[in-house]
């Protein structure tokens, strides 16, 4: 098949259709809405289920219901909607059903704005709801990759009976790029044997996250943790490296920030600076081991994010104090420009400390006076 110019949101939608998504439930929210709109046209066309839910809370519970029947099901939303789904995510995790969630992140906190952001990193990777669990989190950096990872998301969800997130920032959701779609898959003819289909000729199936006894609930949690450990160990860690071979300074970034960083690498290489880029593709499981290895190569790390510094903590946890880990972030929906990153790198490679990374230390060197932060 040839390439088509597609918006990220639309590409994800069509990719999910081709991956065999049989049901979509969602609620409009910018900058994700084209995805829902596309599905509203496409799914009925194919005789599949599209339903605009009355809210994100309803949407995630419709997903939960459909997932319990063993079909491939998806929802999509953006940051505030993702917050509203946390209880549902936790139930889904607690009952081992597969589901795919797309988060097209926007500026927060609160209503914030509708510009691209990576501010949901912690909310999704650390635990997307109460209790101990992690979804698999895939972070594409191009429309093509958004397509590929959406297909992968369904496969992983089913394989591990788990929640899988595809997280993009609004820029990738809104951007058009040429990309190739996968072929349309045939829908499976049957349902998994744990699924709710009516207890005909078999024992009844139950999908529940309730384990009243502490022993049962601990057992369930141990199994869940074992599954998560297995996912971590089972080649599900994905990342991409760009000019890391001989890098003195390593940029670490995902999604749009990684594209920006890549441009910066190109420019800086032209200046003769040995800079490389490490791009985590799975935000959970996080490619910690590879990052640890890279400390033997690069002697400075610079994490670039579109938030106040979230992934940087995972990088620091991987790297410990082997090399200094700096941070450059923009918030509020601002996409950093390659020039800003380049400037920062130049400063670092000359070992000039800057304002910005002071700000992201746990203990700021110069505490600010109260009146400086009280916004009236």
């Amino acid at each position, binding site marked *: 098949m040839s390439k088509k110019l597609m918006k990220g949101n639309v590409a994800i939608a069509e990719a999910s259709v081709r991956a065999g998504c049989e049901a979509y439930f969602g609620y409009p929210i910018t900058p994700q809405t084209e995805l829902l709109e596309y599905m509203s046209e496409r799914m009925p066309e194919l005789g599949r289920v599209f339903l605009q839910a009355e809210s994100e809370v309803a949407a995630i519970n419709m997903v939960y219901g459909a997932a319990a029947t063993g079909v491939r099901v998806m929802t999509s939303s953006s940051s505030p909607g993702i917050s509203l789904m946390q209880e549902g995510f936790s139930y889904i995790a607690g009952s081992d059903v597969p589901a795919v969630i797309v988060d097209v992140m926007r500026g927060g906190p609160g209503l914030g704005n509708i510009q691209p952001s990576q501010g949901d990193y912690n909310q999704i990777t650390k635990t997307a709801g109460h209790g101990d669990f992690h979804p698999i989190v895939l972070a594409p950096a191009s429309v093509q990759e958004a397509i590929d990872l959406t297909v992968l998301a369904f496969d992983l969800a089913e394989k591990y009976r788990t929640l899988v997130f595809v997280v993009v920032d609004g820029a990738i959701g809104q951007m058009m790029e040429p990309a190739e779609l996968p072929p349309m898959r045939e829908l499976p003819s049957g349902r998994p044997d744990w699924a*709710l289909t*009516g207890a005909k000729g078999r024992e009844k199936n139950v999908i529940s996250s309730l384990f009243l006894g502490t022993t049962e609930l601990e057992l369930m949690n141990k199994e869940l943790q074992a599954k998560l450990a297995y996912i971590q160990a089972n080649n599900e860690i994905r990342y991409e490296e760009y000019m890391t071979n001989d890098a003195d300074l390593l940029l670490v970034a995902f999604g749009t920030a990684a594209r920006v960083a890549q441009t910066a690498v190109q420019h800086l290489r032209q200046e003769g600076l040995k800079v490389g880029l490490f791009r985590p593709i799975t935000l959970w499981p996080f490619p910690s081991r590879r990052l640890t290895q890279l400390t033997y190569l690069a002697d400075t790390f610079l994490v670039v994010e579109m938030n106040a510094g979230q992934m940087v903590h995972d990088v620091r946890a991987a790297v410990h104090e082997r090399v200094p880990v700096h941070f450059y972030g923009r918030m509020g929906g601002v996409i950093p420009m390659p020039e800003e990153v380049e400037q920062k790198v130049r400063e670092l490679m000359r070992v000039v400390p800057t304002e910005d990374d002071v700000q992201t230390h746990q203990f700021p060197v110069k505490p600010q006076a109260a009146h400086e932060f009280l916004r009236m």
Partner: protein
Amino acid sequence: MNPAVMTAPNETLVYARPQSLADCYTHYCPGCTHGTAHRLVAEVLDELGLRERTILVASVGCSVFAYNYFNVDACEAPHGRAPAMATGIKRVNPNNIVFTYQGDGDLASIGMGEVIHAAARGENITIIFLNNATYGMTGGQMAPTTLPGQKTSSSPQGRDVAMTGYPLHMAELLGSLPGTAYSVRRSLHDARHVIQAKKAIRTAFEVQMANKGFSVVELLSSCPTNWGMTPEQSLTWIKEQMVPVYPLGDFKV
């Protein structure tokens, strides 16, 4: 099956525990009519031959373990979200019979949005709604269905309508929506009413079988424990206190 069912040659079996009811002991308090409602639903599923087609969506409340108590495929929804979960199931499995079993805290308080929208959409599911005028499971707090003046553990001076509002009449409210095909209120306070309740439950499932849309049966139910009464007193309280506030009747048929 139940070992008790051993019919003598000159006898006919008039009543036996339905097959759709699991052969297990429930955690319900003695005399709690949650059990009665379970039994009626199970009898109806048996009679309509639906056991192997049915999916139950249990809710959060005293009936949280309903998925253990019915011999059907089942799941357990987050508090208030059973209609949404049922919607997800029914949309992908239109040939299954899908019902939720919800308490008044679950359906009329936190789950108001979900149930109204399921009804407005004419979602082809059945809702068995147990109204016991309180939050049974969490220890008897005020529900939106608590009667004016009723003392509960979160309205210790009795429900003051000026501060906490008026009881919600869900059967009427849901009955007023065009997507609703069937909405009635029944009571479980004596044998005659139990038999009427069962008929209504049967009709509700028949409505779903005929793809007519949303059906709901509100059942006035007891909570002897949190009302601080004997089981028998509770039934009297339903009859004398609840029925006048929640008139039995058909609001959409």
